[in-house]
C-alpha cells in the first residue's frame, strides 16, 4: 500500500528520520494520504485519508456526517511525552468510516511492522484514556506520602511485571507534557480522575515562568 505525507510541521508520530516516513511514495502514486499538521483535503479517489491526532478528537477535523468523510480516519502512534514513539498505532474511526478505509489503513501500518488497534473517536483514544488516571493517582499518592517514588515504581515492576513504574515513566516523558494530555481529557470528560495532578501542573507553570 503506497502512501504519502502532507506535513506542515514535524510529526509526533513519524519524525523526519523515521523509516516509515522515509518510505513514502510520490503523491500521485499514493493510495493513502497522511495529513500531519497540514490542513486536510478530502479525496474520494484514495483508499484512505489519515489525519494525525494529538490530544484532540477526529471530529475536530471533519464532520462525520459528510459524505466526503467516509474514507477518513484519525491516527496517533502512541508516545509517552518525550519518549521515542512506540510501535503502537491507534487508528480512530468515526461513525461512518467505511470498512474498506479501515482495512486499507490497517494494512499499510501492519505491513510496516506496527501493531495496529482500532478505536472510536473518543478523547484519549485507548492508552491515554486508561493510563492518565492511573498516573494521576500515582502522582497524588506520592504527594500524600503513601510510599516513596522508588517503592511505588518497584511495586509496579515486581508486582505487576511492568517494564517501568508509573512515576518514572511520567517524569521521563515530561511532567509538563503529562499536564497537557491530562488537561485535554479533563476538559473532555470533566471527571476528577483526569484533573491534572499538582506535580504536573506546577511543572507546567514552572516551565512557563522560567521561559
Amino acid at each position, binding site marked *: 500500500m503506497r502512501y504519502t505525507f502532507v506535513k506542515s510541521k514535524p510529526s509526533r508520530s513519524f519524525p523526519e528520520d523515521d523509516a516509515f516516513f522515509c518510505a513514502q511514495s510520490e503523491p500521485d502514486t499514493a493510495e493513502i494520504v497522511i495529513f500531519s499538521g497540514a490542513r486536510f483535503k478530502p479525496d474520494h479517489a484514495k483508499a484512505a485519508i489519515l489525519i494525525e491526532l494529538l490530544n484532540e478528537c477526529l471530529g475536530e477535523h471533519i464532520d462525520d456526517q459528510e459524505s466526503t468523510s467516509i474514507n477518513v480516519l484519525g491516527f496517533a502512534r502512541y508516545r509517552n511525552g518525550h519518549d521515542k514513539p512506540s510501535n503502537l498505532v491507534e487508528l480512530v474511526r468515526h461513525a461512518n468510516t467505511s470498512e474498506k478505509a479501515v482495512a486499507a489503513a490497517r494494512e499499510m501500518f501492519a505491513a510496516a511492522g506496527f501493531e495496529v488497534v482500532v478505536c472510536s473517536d473518543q478523547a484519549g483514544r485507548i492508552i491515554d484514556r486508561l493510563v492518565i488516571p492511573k498516573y494521576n493517582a500515582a502522582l497524588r499518592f506520592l504527594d500524600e506520602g*503513601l*510510599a516513596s517514588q522508588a517503592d511505588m515504581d*518497584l511495586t509496579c515492576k515486581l508486582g505487576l511485571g511492568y517494564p517501568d513504574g508509573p512515576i518514572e515513566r511520567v517524569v521521563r516523558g515530561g511532567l509538563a507534557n503529562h499536564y497537557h494530555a491530562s488537561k485535554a481529557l479533563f476538559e473532555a470528560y470533566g471527571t476528577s480522575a483526569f484533573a491534572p495532578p499538582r506535580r504536573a501542573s506546577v511543572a507546567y507553570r514552572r516551565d512557563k515562568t522560567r521561559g
Partner: protein
Amino acid sequence: MGAGIALVAARAGFATVCFDRSGDGLEKAARQSAGFLDKSVARGKLDSAKRDQVLTSMSQTTRIEDLADCDLVIEAVFEDLAAKRELLGRLDAVCAEDTIFASNTSTLSITEIASGSKRPERAVGMHFCLPAQLMKLIEMSPGILTSDDTFKTAWQWTEACGQTPVKTQDKPGFILNALLVPFNNDAIRAVEAGVAEPADIDRAIKAGLGYKMGPLELIDLIGLDTQVRLCEAFYPITLDPRAATPPLLRRMVAAGLLGRKSGRGFFTYEGNSMFGA
C-alpha cells in the same frame, strides 16, 4: 495464599507451622507445596536435599495452640475484618508477648485488624503477591500503633527470606491494588463505552506500554467475581468513582461470565487456549 507464604518461610530455613481450621485444606496445601518443590527439582532450580529440608521444616496443624512458640505469625485467613480480628484475639492468648502478628490482607486496614489484639504495637501489614512462592514483592505497612521495632524486625525477616519489601502507609489497597483495581475498572468502562473491542484494548496496552498482559485478560484471570469483590471492598472506603463496580462487570457476573474459570469473560477459553484476543 497461606501455603505459598509458608513455602517462602520454609525455603529460607525457618521452622514453619501451617495452621488452618480445615484439615482437608491443610492436606491439600501440603500436597500442592510438595508438588511445587518436586517441579522445582525437576527443573533444576532446587536440589533434592534442599527439597527434603524444606519439607521437614514445615508442619501442619489445626490446633492454634501449636503456634505458641512462633516468633512471627502471618495470617492469610478469609478477607474478613471480623475473622481476622477474632483470630488475633485468639493468638494473644496463645503466643508470647513479643510474637509479631503480620497480616496478608489485600484490602483491609492493618490498624483495624490490629485492634483485634491487645498488643497492636506487635501487628504489621505484610502483603504478598500471588503466587507468593514465586513473587518477590511484599508490601509492608505499619498500622497507627505498630512499633518501629516490630516493623524493622518484620522487614528484616522478609529480607532474610530473599523477598523484596517496599514500605507503604496503611491505606486501602496499599500501592498495588490501589493502582490496579481502578485501572482494571477503567478498562471495563472503556469496553462499555464502545472505545474499542477488548482485544484491541489489551493489544494497545501491551504494545504501547510493554505490559505482559492486558487489563481485560488479567481480569479474566483474577475472576470477574473477584473484581466485583475488590470493588465492593474499596469503593465504600475510598468513595473513588473509579473503584466503583462498573455496571458491565456486574452484568457479566450475573450472566455467569466469570473469566478463565468459567470458560468465558472478556475472552473465551478452551483448555489452555484463549480466543478473541
